[in-house]
């Protein structure tokens, strides 16, 4: 035990003392939101600033002034379609929308054909949807008018309904829930686990490889059992990840509390800052919003999610960390590692891809299956938990994950103890299997 601790301590301290660790840990919670903000900002800004022209050749005459796909300017033109097709590009327009003459006299006709769009490059799906939507809405309005309803009644007929979701707690209490927030939490925690496996898994592999290539490993294993060395390494690098995570949680919690605090109305400060330019109404609105957000967060079972997250985070880390260590021990260089990385990376990537479907249908068959298999359960179960998971599934999944990582550590340990002493061996799966069964 003392040996494992010594190895752990070295792995931990050499990493935590690095400047790059400090930078990554302190800057990520600041940089990440900034990047997200920048992407959102520029993508909206880009759209606003681009003013491509779309020519509309409307032979029906019903569509003047209906189009409003942001990012484009619409110019209504007349003339022959064939002629326009040839010339619209030289006139500097992005696209040409052709609307044929339409017969709306028969109200039972629901299908209209003949709308055409010409352009050099494909417009985005969003643009196409907006154009279609505009055409459809206009046609619907026209048909409603033809059927004898006036505009006033039509607008009165349009309603808006919101569904409020509640989760029944074990005490039978109905709690307002929020799928959007569940989605965000499920996605966020799942993605964090995904990221940590990759970042810290490859750090373990690198660390094992370094000991091999620097030829210190035989010195070390003359005083430490290879298994102790491997576990010390996995735990040490894991502790680094854990430290980073804790700092992030504290930083993000502090930042968001401060953010909410400002939003909620430290009214005095806001009032002063706004120097009475902000109307009182806006302030109370902000306060309401902050109160809503706070209330929404209060509906989430924070403790449960946090505990589950820690469990799956550690489980995933041990499972994959051990496998990464085994790969590192088997090869002589990073390039050689590629072929063995593949089967390890596949389930991780599959999990993150499946996560989107799981978030869509958190209690579907695929979601349940993948949240039980140890290789995928950490990411998938985290995606499910905010939506509510039956206790037996959670318990089974946890038991299987524990079995999974114990098994992975066992397999990895057996490959590791041989691999670290092998130089210049062209390793393949057969050789690895042999190492696994070999006596030491």
């Amino acid at each position, binding site marked *: 035990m003392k*040996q494992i601790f*010594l*190895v752990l301590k*070295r792995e931990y301290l*050499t990493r935590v003392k690095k400047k790059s660790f400090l930078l990554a840990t302190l800057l990520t919670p600041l940089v990440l939101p900034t990047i997200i903000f920048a992407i959102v900002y520029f993508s909206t800004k880009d759209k606003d600033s681009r003013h491509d022209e779309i020519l509309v050749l409307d032979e029906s005459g019903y569509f003047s002034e209906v189009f409003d796909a942001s990012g484009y300017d619409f110019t209504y033109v007349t003339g022959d379609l064939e002629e326009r097709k040839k010339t619209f590009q030289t006139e500097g327009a992005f696209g040409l929308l052709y609307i044929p003459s339409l017969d709306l006299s028969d109200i039972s006709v629901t299908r209209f054909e003949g709308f055409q769009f010409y352009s050099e490059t494909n417009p985005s799906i969003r643009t196409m949807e907006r154009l279609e939507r505009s055409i459809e809405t206009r046609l619907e309005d026209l048909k409603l008018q033809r059927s004898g309803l006036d505009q006033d009644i039509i607008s009165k007929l349009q309603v808006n309904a919101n569904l409020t979701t509640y989760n029944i707690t074990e005490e039978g209490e109905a709690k307002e829930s929020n799928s959007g927030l569940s989605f965000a939490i499920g996605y966020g925690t799942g993605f964090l686990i995904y990221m940590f496996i990759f970042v810290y898994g490859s750090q373990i592999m690198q660390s094992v490889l*370094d*000991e091999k290539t*620097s*030829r*210190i490993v*035989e*010195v*070390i*294993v*003359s*005083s*430490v*059992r*290879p298994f102790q060395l491997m576990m010390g390494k996995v735990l040490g690098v894991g502790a680094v990840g854990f430290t980073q995570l804790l700092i992030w949680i504290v930083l993000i919690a502090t930042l968001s509390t401060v953010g909410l605090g400002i939003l909620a109305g430290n009214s005095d400060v806001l009032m002063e800052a706004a120097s009475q330019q902000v109307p009182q109404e806006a302030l109370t609105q902000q306060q309401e919003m902050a109160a809503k957000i706070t209330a929404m967060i209060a509906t989430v079972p924070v403790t449960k999610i946090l505990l589950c997250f820690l469990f799956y985070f550690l489980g995933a880390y041990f499972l994959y960390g051990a496998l990464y260590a085994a790969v590192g021990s088997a090869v002589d260089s990073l390039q050689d590692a590629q072929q063995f990385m593949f089967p390890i990376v596949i389930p991780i990537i599959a999990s993150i891809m499946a996560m989107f479907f799981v978030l869509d249908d958190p209690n579907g068959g695929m979601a349940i299956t993948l949240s039980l298999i140890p290789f995928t359960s950490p990411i998938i179960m985290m995606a499910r938990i905010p939506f509510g998971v039956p206790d037996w599934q959670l318990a089974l999944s946890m038991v299987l994950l524990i079995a999974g990582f114990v098994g992975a550590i066992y397999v990895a340990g057996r490959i590791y103890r041989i691999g670290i*002493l092998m*130089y210049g061996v062209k390793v393949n799966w057969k050789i690895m299997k*042999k190492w696994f069964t*070999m*006596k*030491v």
Partner: protein
Amino acid sequence: MNILEANHVTKRYAEHTALNDVSISIPKQSIFGLLGPNGAGKTTLIRIVNQIIMADEGQVLINGEKLEPKHIGVIGYLPEERGLYKKMKVGEQLLYLAQLKGLSTPEAKRRIKFWLDKLGLYDWAGKKVEDLSKGMAQKIQFIATVLHEPQLLILDEPFSGFDPVNANLIKDEIFELREKGATVIFSTHRMESVEQLCDHIALINKSQKILDGPKNDIRNSYKLNQYEVTFKGTLQSGVSLSVLKEEVSDMGLNKAIIESKNGESPNELLKELINKIEVHSFVEIIPSINDIFINIVKGGQS
């Protein structure tokens, strides 16, 4: 008293047997040469003693006790494939390695200072290993091996990669450690490099021990009763001696290799020689370990 005894140690791998029924005894405070060509099984034996791998059969005794994890602190091992953490500072690295061997932090620090001072590396304690010259790194490796004052030092191919100056320095340190009570095992395929250092040797070839014992006894027992003589005059084979080879040496002297026919003593040979020629030198030819090894291996083949 033997510090190390290996009894009938066998280690098999899937395709080959790395060690086949090898038994050796290493007396306390000896300098023991574990000799043999590459691939003979030396490193396998050493790894078994270091508990890096385990023997399939046979047992290893340290100071008469069955080999156990606690004996890690008794042994200092400098492997053939050796290195250091490049990004770690010299002092921290030595401290880490010493702690792994079970030294307490203050004791380890004291000894690190002592050794760095002794080998003139004290100013480098705060430097990273990658900033050190190769020779310095080798000295650090040696310090790491002896920091915990092991009773048994195992050095696998110790002088490969050492420059001559460092090699001599390390040799001196090794002798000093032996004076203080340590036992040293040299493992090498370059037999001539350690021959004069060792007092005991074992020859290993193709996973088997072919010879062991005190070096001088071995060399004596493989004496061929041959002598090199430089002389004036002409020499022919006689009653007790036969001339194997004769050549003209410089300064008007001749040189010959003679052999006693019936195991006559050097004195008896000299008596006959003095009557025939003017003897300028008379030296017994004692075969080197390398010669003995080649002799045995060839003899085994034919």
